[in-house]
């Protein structure tokens, strides 16, 4: 059971260059932090893959153990966790986020 969930999580993490595990969908976020993170990702002008953890309780329960990060949303770039919405905001404000995502899309 949990092995399947871990496989599912890994395949979601690697589904695109940028992946967000969030509450709700980009069109209809169910939490202020997820909404903010989506807004920032959209501002980079690159597509991203999103996973609604409210619709996937198995992922919601298991991802914090897999990624070693306790809260949602969680944002991955090229399969690597970059943090939650606070870190995403901070990287965005520091001008570090767009270059990171731009370079992921150049590969």
């Amino acid at each position, binding site marked *: 059971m949990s092995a399947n969930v871990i496989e599912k999580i890994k395949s979601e993490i690697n589904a695109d260059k940028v992946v967000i595990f969030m509450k709700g969908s980009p069109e209809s976020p169910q*939490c*202020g*932090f997820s909404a903010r993170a989506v807004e920032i990702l959209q501002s980079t002008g690159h597509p991203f893959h999103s996973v609604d953890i409210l619709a996937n309780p198995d992922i919601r329960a298991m991802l914090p153990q897999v990624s*070693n*990060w*306790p*809260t949602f949303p969680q944002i991955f770039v090229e399969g690597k*966790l*970059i*943090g*939650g919405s*606070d*870190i995403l905001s*901070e*990287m965005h404000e520091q001008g570090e986020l767009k270059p990171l995502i731009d370079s992921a899309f150049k590969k």
Partner: protein
Amino acid sequence: MVETAEIHSLVEQAFPGSEVTVEDLTGTGDHFQVIVLSPVFKGKTLMEQHKMVYATLEPLKDKIHALTIKTRPL
């Protein structure tokens, strides 16, 4: 419901010599902003810094609905 003082003392104990600011963002005792300036953050990534703060507040995690964290090395 959590008091800001409770969060403040947990964080302060975990990061001696740090500057800690805790704000109840909604006045409802479950949405908080925690700002921690600490010498122990020196040389650590933001992810590592935030993880350390999350770990400190682990005992309160079922009572806190939303947590905004800001950290800086001091």
